[in-house]
């Protein structure tokens, strides 16, 4: 409500002020020809300088003060690389940003109109032009090449021993599936989706028998993890900010992203002195009304703990034997053997 009042006051002030201006306008209409540049020219020139100093101070003050707030801790191996790239780029562009702005506003102040001055007739200088074509080109080449190396490492095929986890997006949540002991995800087909089989897993495929679901992603620290990403309805995008991980989920076109987590949730909690801390997964591709609520958690644990957790999980079939009711008999036998183990 206070905000509304503030808005009202603002409007009122501007109305009063406008009425005032109308009167001055009338006097202008009656007034004589203006000069080339009035006193306002000086004011505007000074304001540019003021803006430069004021906003510069504000930017540095805030950037330094709030660094820990906007800088998310990194929890993956490639995240260190991309963040390095980010800060290198920040340094380069930051320098350019500051220099060009100092020149822009300083020139505006320094070369404001003075009747006795004449502008320099300076239409071109090929040497300068070539210089400032080549220098940015060289700097950008360095940035591109380092970016390209990082990019090809990140998008390279996942290591053989990567832990595979299937991440499926739908309106409006994520579902996870682990491949079970055989490390092989069972096939799926979207036509098999029904209320009891929300992922459309094909349970006539024996690889699917030991697959198990999870409410959150549990992964071992220091070991490669491969997300196999798909979507059930519209586009989604898996985003794990601390892992510096993002990849779209596309219906009909599985995607993937692999990474190596470097810090367990417990380590991160200790580091940040925050007992509530969890790694999160969000959606970053607009997908409908619940786009903003597709939250899931990642828990990074020590490898031993991971093995233990992994062994404790119940498979789909164990949870709901009816899933294989229509499957051939040899599949049913296999399932029994597996659950007995």
């Amino acid at each position, binding site marked *: 409500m206070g905000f509304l009042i503030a808005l009202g006051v603002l409007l009122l002030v501007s109305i009063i002020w406008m009425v005032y201006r109308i009167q001055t306008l009338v006097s202008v209409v009656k007034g004589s020809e203006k000069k080339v540049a009035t006193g306002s020219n000086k004011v505007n020139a000074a304001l540019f300088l003021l803006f430069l100093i004021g906003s510069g101070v504000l930017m540095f003050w805030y950037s330094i003060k709030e660094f820990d707030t906007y800088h998310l801790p990194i929890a993956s191996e490639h995240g260190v690389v991309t963040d390095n790239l980010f800060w290198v780029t920040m340094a380069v562009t930051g320098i350019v940003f500051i220099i060009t702005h100092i020149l822009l506003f300083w020139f505006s102040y320094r070369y404001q109109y003075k009747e006795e001055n004449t502008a320099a007739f300076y239409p071109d200088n090929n040497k300068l032009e070539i210089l400032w074509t080549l220098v940015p080109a060289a700097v950008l080449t360095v940035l591109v090449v380092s970016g390209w190396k990082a990019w090809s490492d990140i998008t390279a095929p996942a290591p053989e021993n990567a832990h595979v986890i299937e991440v499926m997006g739908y309106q409006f949540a994520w579902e996870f599936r682990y491949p079970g002991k055989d490390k092989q995800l069972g096939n799926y087909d979207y036509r098999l989706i029904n209320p009891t089989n929300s992922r459309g897993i094909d349970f006539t495929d024996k690889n699917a028998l030991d697959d198990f679901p999870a409410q959150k992603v549990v992964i071992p620290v220091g070991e490669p993890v491969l997300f196999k990403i798909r979507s059930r309805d519209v586009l989604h995008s898996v985003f794990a*900010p601390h892992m510096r991980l993002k990849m779209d989920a596309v219906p009909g076109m599985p995607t993937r992203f692999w990474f190596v987590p470097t810090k367990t949730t417990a380590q991160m909690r200790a580091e940040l002195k925050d007992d509530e801390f969890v790694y999160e997964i969000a959606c970053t591709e607009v997908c409908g009304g619940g786009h903003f609520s597709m939250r899931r958690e990642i828990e990074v644990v020590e490898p031993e703990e991971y093995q233990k957790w992994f062994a404790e999980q119940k498979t789909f079939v164990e949870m709901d034997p009816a899933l294989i009711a229509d499957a051939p008999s040899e599949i049913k036998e296999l399932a029994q053997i597996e659950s007995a183990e």
Partner: protein
Amino acid sequence: MAVANVSTHGASAHDHHDDHEHSDNFITKYIFSTDHKMIGKQFLVTGIVWALIGGFLSILFRLQLGFPDMDMTFLKPILGGWIDESGALDTNFYLALVTMHGTIMVFFVLTAGLSGTFSNYLIPLQIGARDMASGFMNMLSYWLFFIAGILMFISLFIETGPAGGGWVIYPPLSALEQAIPGSGLGMTLWLVAMVFFIASQLMGGINYISTVINLRTKGMSFSRLPLTIWSFFLTAIIGLLSFPVLFSAALLLVFDRSFGTSFYLSDIYIGGEALPNTGGSAVLFQHLFWFLGHPEVYIVLLPALGITSEVIATNSRKPIFGYKAMILSMLGITVLSFVVWAHHMFVSGMNPFLGSIFMFLTLIIAVPSAVKVFNYLTTLWRGNLIFTPAMLFSIGLVSFFISGGLTGIFLGNSAVDIQLHDTYFVVAHFHLVMGSASFFGLMAGIYHWFPKMFGRMMDAKLGYIHFWLTFVGVYMVFFPMHYIGIAGFPRRYYSWTNFNFADMYTDLNMFVSVAAIITFGAQFIFLFNFFYSMYKGRKASLNPWRSNTLEWTTPLEPGHGNWPGEIPTVYRWPYDYSKPGAKEDFIPQTVPLSSTPESNLPHEAEQVKLEREIMAEEGSDILVANESKES
């Protein structure tokens, strides 16, 4: 006070209708006008109306973001059912607001409102033509745009709401009504409106290109075109090549939506049923869309850069630095704009190898942009700067172009883009570099050419206040978004309280929202100034900014046909400001080199001989006419 010379040219009767000033009635003069100046004004006023609507929509969703717990019941009279019992905004309608804000601003305001206005208004005036190549097609272009606007406007009020899948309308979200209500009738209207819009743009573009190529006045070679015309010309070429592709993309989407084909749809289970579509590719649409979408950024930006070049040169009283380099860099941008589209899709699941290629191409496009910035700075250097409102907005544009352009280097780098893609960093980036920069170009253009359009001056002091509030306001709105984006906040989020990593910037978001409201409020100062000055402003002089280009040689309020007599001939480039030795600090393009021996450069002295010969053939009165006006 030097009055620009209206050169009366003897023998250059190469235009066909000397019978300007038809007897127009109200309808042919103000509504179905074929006069490029009136059509330009129509585009301008329509663009302003759309800017207000688009801006208002952004205020609505900024309220939601800045004050998530606010009771919005007071908005019920406007939004009706989109505000629920508890006073909260509907989440689907939030997305619709974001979508419509984007669509309106990108297409209706910064494409039609900016390039539609100034290409129409300035091309014939600055190249010395009576009108566009086809006045009828030009009129049609406006009215198709108008129809597109009406359809889009209607879609705001239908029961299921306007399109809500983002302005990029990625299928399957935009193809399936089950996915979001906006993908029903709202999306249909969006698509139909865009088809009209594309047709309008193509007609406009064809007209601009053929006018610039065919109807330049005598002496107006390409190396003497003002940079504004160069930018409009290249913009039209980009539009001609990219809008048809959007048409193709939209057509296939229409087939998918209405006829059940599977161009973009595959393996979808939604609303409790598996759809029959199989074999489609959602990424295909993104390729087609961004093939338009990225050039569209330059369609929006290039005219603003062109206007800025003109305004900065005029008000620095200096030639634009590196005229040829400016043209080359615009050409470079034009060509490169077609080969960088997939940098919007680094994490879309497309082949990572394509990603690397597009990263290289994308960062190359930063080079011509950098050249432009350095040239602007050098133009200001050792100038004699007059801060007209147009000049202020142009300097503001350069500042935004730098700030927003530099963040593009982050986003064009695919490895860095992984984290930043679809976060507020992107929002900050494009709002500065294409949104605000182009908007400032539009404003600079209005303040600069208002005296030509309406024969009156806008109030400068109101212009200053408008500029400073907007300039500071825009930075207050978009600069904090960089921090929010680095922290990883995804865009198009209704609220972020669900996430621990994002739930810490309530104060900053509130700040941004308040800044947005103030900035929006400041635009009413402009509106007042604009409409008030149109009728009550101080009468303008013929060449109030003491500028060189041809439009200032027309009468105060030029009729249909622009010049009452012959079209003036052009003898020099448009940037002879503060030429050493010259009497005044500007020499209009219509002044022959032979009449300014005191200021001619060595290579120009050689051209004088040539010029004299030609004039001797054409008739002897030219020189006299020009010289007598000059004194």
